């Protein structure tokens, strides 16, 4: 018994150690290269220089682009979460005819729209609607692409919350919107947070749509600016790229930490039935 227990423990910690290594090792470069004067692909002990950061700070578009990324991703995430929550709630609680088929169809179509082939229709649509070079336009387009998956995930959250909370509030006289605000949203808040972070991460890394739809470099997000850190011949400027990559990663990580601290970051929340 004890021998088996010990073996089990050893096995457990070995597995955890392997997992930790697997998920950490690829990140090492990001931790060392920005602090190295002349970084290569090799991970080495950095000479702790701040020059690279200075270079990024002096870059005319680098830091502003992070702000643009923030506007785009937070804007999209808010819109996605709000709309998906309302829609998923209604779909979860009310039997609308053909709702499952509709959801699956939308989910499948969303795969087309996130692909490269959709760039022409989306671009021309944006031109027709006068949404070119506008953060709002891009947010709307990105939201459209993310919504089906968000609704799909959110509906799962909603389906798994007991209905008695809502019924209880309802007997006390709460209106549907009050129920959503007072009861449903707090109950599925970890789910909303998860979807929010998912949306942020998606927009944060998106290059093609922002590049095509925003011509004004002062409106372009960090994903686009990252692509500019190459030379005429396509060579990566590792100094800038590693440092900006780090700075570009920090906000999403902070956002995740904040959200996970504040709202919990789990699927289906912490409510036991």
């Amino acid at each position: 018994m004890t021998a088996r227990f010990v073996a089990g423990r050893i096995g457990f910690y070995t597995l955890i150690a392997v997992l930790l290594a697997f998920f950490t090792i690829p990140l090492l470069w990001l931790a060392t290269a920005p602090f190295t004067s002349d970084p290569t692909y090799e991970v080495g002990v950095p000479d702790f220089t701040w020059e690279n950061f200075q270079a990024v700070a002096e870059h005319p578009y680098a830091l502003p682009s992070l702000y643009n990324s923030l506007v785009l991703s937070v804007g999209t995430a808010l819109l996605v979460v709000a709309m998906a929550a309302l829609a998923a709630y209604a779909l979860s609680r009310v039997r609308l005819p053909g709702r499952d088929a509709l959801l699956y169809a939308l989910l499948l179509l969303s795969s087309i729209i996130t692909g490269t082939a959709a760039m022409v229709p989306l671009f021309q649509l944006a031109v027709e609607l006068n949404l070119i070079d506008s953060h709002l336009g891009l947010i709307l387009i990105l939201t459209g692409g993310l919504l089906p998956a968000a609704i799909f995930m959110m509906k799962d959250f909603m389906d798994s919350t007991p209905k008695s909370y809502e019924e209880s509030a309802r007997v006390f006289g709460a209106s549907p919107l009050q129920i959503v605000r007072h009861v449903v949203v707090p109950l599925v808040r970890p789910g909303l947070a998860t979807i929010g972070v998912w949306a942020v991460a998606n927009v944060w890394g998106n290059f093609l749509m922002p590049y095509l739809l925003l011509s004004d470099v002062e409106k372009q997000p960090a994903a686009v600016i990252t692509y500019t850190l190459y030379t005429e011949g396509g060579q990566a400027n590792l100094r800038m790229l590693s440092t900006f990559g780090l700075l570009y990663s920090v906000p999403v990580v902070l956002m995740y930490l904040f959200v996970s601290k504040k709202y919990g970051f789990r699927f289906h929340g912490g409510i036991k039935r």
Partner: protein
Amino acid sequence: MALRKVAAVIAVVGIGLTACGQSSGGGGDTIELTIAQNAIAGGKNAAAANFVANWVVPQFEAAQKAKGKDVKVKFVPSGVDDEQYKTKLSLDLKSGKGADVIDIDGIWAGEFAEAGYIKPLADLVGAEADGWSGWAQIPESVQGLATYNGKKYALPIGTDGRVLYFNKTLFQKAGLPADWQPKSWQEVLDAGTKLKSAGVPVPIQINAGTAMGEATSMQGVLPLLAGAGGEVQKDGKWTGASQPLKDALGLYQKIYGGGLGDPQLQQEAKGRDKSFQQFAEGKIGILMEGDYFWRGVINPKDGVAPMADRDQTVGYALIPAMEPGKGIRGQDFVSMSGGALRTINPNSKHPKEAFELLTFTLSPEALKEETKGGNVRITPRTDVNKEILAGEPLLTFISDKVLPLTAFRPPVAVYPQVSVALQEATAAVAGGTAPDQAAAAYQKKLEGIVGGAGNIIAP
């Protein structure tokens, strides 16, 4: 930098005074112009971006003001892969948007013209287009870059050329001369063999495979094809599995099958970067590259793979034909050139002013200013080149020796696909396929791309 600022201030002040003098007539409608390039401050082609933003814009505005015109110029920077830039530009132009003055790669001229994205300059601005004084200074072959179906669609903004770079230190070790100039492919191979026995890890690097994309075509198979006397397209007909192609692929086989090159490197996604790195580290003996390599890669000042002793260590030679006299047009030596174009957006509301801006950027003053401070490149104008290339032995070499014998890619819409097919052929050979077989596969592919065997010259 400081000087430039002072100049700008003086200009602005001077203009301000003139403007004051005639303010009664001025101040009316402001003409807004935009100029777009795939260049961005702090990133790709930063120098070019800074030049446009800090010199062209204020100088042109000032010059216009002097003429009594209120013109505002906005620079639209960008810094992405050429394909992405091209996509964006195409979408913009198709939708009637985009900057008034735009840069495109010379190779896009045909497909853009066919799509109606760009128009002959004469159609847009009339006689002024052909009347521009600068044409006289631009060599015929470079003008050809901007010409499609006999009409000028743009102004060429520069050109380049390809040579064989070699590492003199390694050459010395292998007992090869520092003023090496091979006269045939065999001499290149012989040098490679000597380098190999002298312990050089990678004796020869000639780009192959699809991973390097167009770099394989421009710095690989196309110069070799030209050296064997072949062209991808001639008189509207495409060349299939011709003898020159088989010869060119045969050289690949000798290099990569004979242990004179690193076949794996050709397949790596970042293989070209790596070849630069290795050359800078003294691991590659001979490398076929364009002048960009000299200016932007091993440049001791701000290259991506700087070589502090570039001027002493790195030698360069003309690319020889397979055998003397066997190259295209019976040449002994060959090269390939590309070049960018600058043109006017047909959707521009102010084509005349846009053309003025366009020619302004190609005025001798602008070109001289642009190439100041270590940013020397080969401009389209011979008058300017004479002046600015003086202290640049390599660029002078290219301008004087290479450009007269260089060749250009066919500026037609299907070329990119043909190029990919060529790259695939080199990949196959580098991977061990026989040249004849790879050439046959290329021809088959070519038939699909160019619309049937009827458009191909039978071997």
